[in-house]
């Protein structure tokens, strides 16, 4: 031992310098990576907020968030129009909620099928196909919805719903050519693979020992799934839902193509709506500088909504995750 130390490091323990340069360089390299991320984030938040600030201050933050008038001006230097985000925030939330409502149960069902019902010979290719769905670009989803899915599949469904359940305000007719319902359903298909893939992983991670314990108590396969696998996976399901919701909130192209471009709040899913992202992409090009600032203010609002939802999700996940040791109630 002693001889080996002296051979390799003749200077002894105090003066060792070999390899330290590499360590230091590596440290700086990864630190630079971390700092770059922070810098980009700071730049983004800073510049957008700076651009949006005049809009917020001229409109008043409360009016901006709750009002429903969007009347852009044409000035290059000052804010002359009226900019209120209510209609678009409503459209964003409605389509996202509709998408989550449709996608979540289906995702859980598919994930359970893959993890606990289908054998590996069926589950493996099917799981791969589901992941493949996530790789389709959103503009393709939008065009497919526009030219095929909405007119041939969703339209009859919407007509049927408005005729039979039209007394419920959200299903009230008439059904216009493009509407939040179409956008929401296509959005559901888009976020389905993400949620399914994550939930599937979570279900697979449920220990076999717990499943066996339940079987040994006389549980049926159904009972094992609903009373062991799903409950223990609740934090993960919430997390997956929030990830899907995040994607739904920010989704732009497919929604812009399908939502209909409304200018007022319609409670009915079958009448034109507009989302934040769709409004930005649809009007950015023909807007005067002041209106562009207003669109950036919309973007900041969307960012804020996403952050709030993410933080709420973290809180929920932390509360649900407490099962692993501490008190439950």
């Amino acid at each position, binding site marked *: 031992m002693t001889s080996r130390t002296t051979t390799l490091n003749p200077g002894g323990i105090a003066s060792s310098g070999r390899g330290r340069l590499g360590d230091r360089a590596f440290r700086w390299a990864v630190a630079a990576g971390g700092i770059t991320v922070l810098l980009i984030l700071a730049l983004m938040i800073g510049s957008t907020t700076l651009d949006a600030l005049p809009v917020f201050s001229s409109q008043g933050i409360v009016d901006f968030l709750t009002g429903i008038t969007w009347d852009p001006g044409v000035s290059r230097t000052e804010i002359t129009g009226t900019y209120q985000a209510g209609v678009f925030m409503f459209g964003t939330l409605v389509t996202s909620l509709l998408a989550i409502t449709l996608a979540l149960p289906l995702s859980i069902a598919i994930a359970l099928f893959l993890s606990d019902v289908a*054998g590996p010979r069926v589950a493996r290719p099917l799981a791969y196909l589901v992941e493949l769905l996530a790789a389709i670009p959103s503009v393709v989803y939008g065009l497919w919805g526009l030219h095929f899915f909405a007119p041939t599949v969703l339209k009859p469904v919407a007509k049927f719903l408005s005729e039979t359940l039209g007394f419920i305000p959200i299903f009230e007719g008439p059904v216009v050519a493009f509407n939040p319902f179409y956008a929401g359903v296509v959005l559901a298909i888009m976020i389905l693979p993400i949620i399914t893939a994550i939930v599937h992983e979570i279900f697979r991670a449920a*220990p076999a*020992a*717990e499943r*066996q*314990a*339940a*079987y*040994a*108590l*006389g*549980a*049926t396969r159904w*009972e094992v799934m609903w*009373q*062991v696998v799903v*409950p*223990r996976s609740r934090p993960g399901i919430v997390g997956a839902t929030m990830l899907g919701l995040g994607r739904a909130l920010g989704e732009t192209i497919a929604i812009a193509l399908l939502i209909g471009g409304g200018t007022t709040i319609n409670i009915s899913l079958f009448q034109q709506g507009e989302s934040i992202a769709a409004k930005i992409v649809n009007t950015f090009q023909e807007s005067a500088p002041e209106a562009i600032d207003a669109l950036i203010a919309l973007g900041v609002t969307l960012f804020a909504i996403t952050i709030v939802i993410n933080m709420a999700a973290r809180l929920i996940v932390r509360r649900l995750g407490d*099962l*692993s*040791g*501490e*008190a*439950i*109630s």
Partner: protein
Amino acid sequence: MRVTTESATMTTPTMTDPAVEATPSQPPEIRPPGAMVPPRPIARARDASAPRNEPEARPANPAVELSDVSIFYGAFRAVRDVSFSVPAHAITALIGPSGSGKSTLLRAINRMNDLTPGSRLDGEVRYHGTNLYRADVDPVEVRRRIGMVFQKPNPFPKSIYDNVAFGPRLNGYRDNMDELVERSLRQAALWDEVKDKLKQSGLALSGGQQQRLCIARTIAVEPEIILMDEPASALDPRSTLQIEELMAELKENYTIVIVTHNMQQAARASDRTVFLNMGDDRAGYVVEVDDTVKIFTNPREQLTEDYISGRFG
């Protein structure tokens, strides 16, 4: 009399069943009234023509009888032509070296092997005369009557209370759940340690406590037989001793089958011992079945003596 009630619910006609005829010798009912009786028959009708003769002298009133049982995983035969009986209200230990099929056999008794794709069983596993592998027997019902405690404690990530209540809730138990939970925890010798923290997660307990929680959870569905797959192998010596003492108490009410690697444990805790070995074809087979005292003091087979004296395995 619990056994009478259960047998009568479960198998008709009961007159010709020796297991039922023997019930007067059973210990009296210890459970309070309102205890759960398995609601549904295990199978639609009883197989009256099942052969009942066994070459080897078998204990009176067996709870389970295995005859010519072979178990396959795909093409691989894990267990070959195993026959033995499990006496009621006693502890039967399955011992033998690794690969001799102890756990496989144990899991065959409550049809847990069904959950392993590609597994298959030849021969018969009779429970009060009914072959558990008959086509019309529902494995879910089998497992409600024949519970299982696993090698590694596996409580659910739920509260202590909910862990114990899990099985009864599945069974649609609607009586006083608090009482059933307390009784099960008492029987598992865990009540005094957890009575003030029933709402805490079962995972917060120590390993030995977790295992006793798993035993309480199994007891709560009031099975007739409890299978234990090396229940103390992951525990420290003190917890091991607690589990063994617990088993001795439980055998008054339950029939226990235990797989163990620990020779002293088998000698200390069991009444009857089945010694298995792995054959040249890598399939497990029975070398010797006898009262534990006999196996450990005066075995018939040289192989048994070699094994219990630590010469192999």
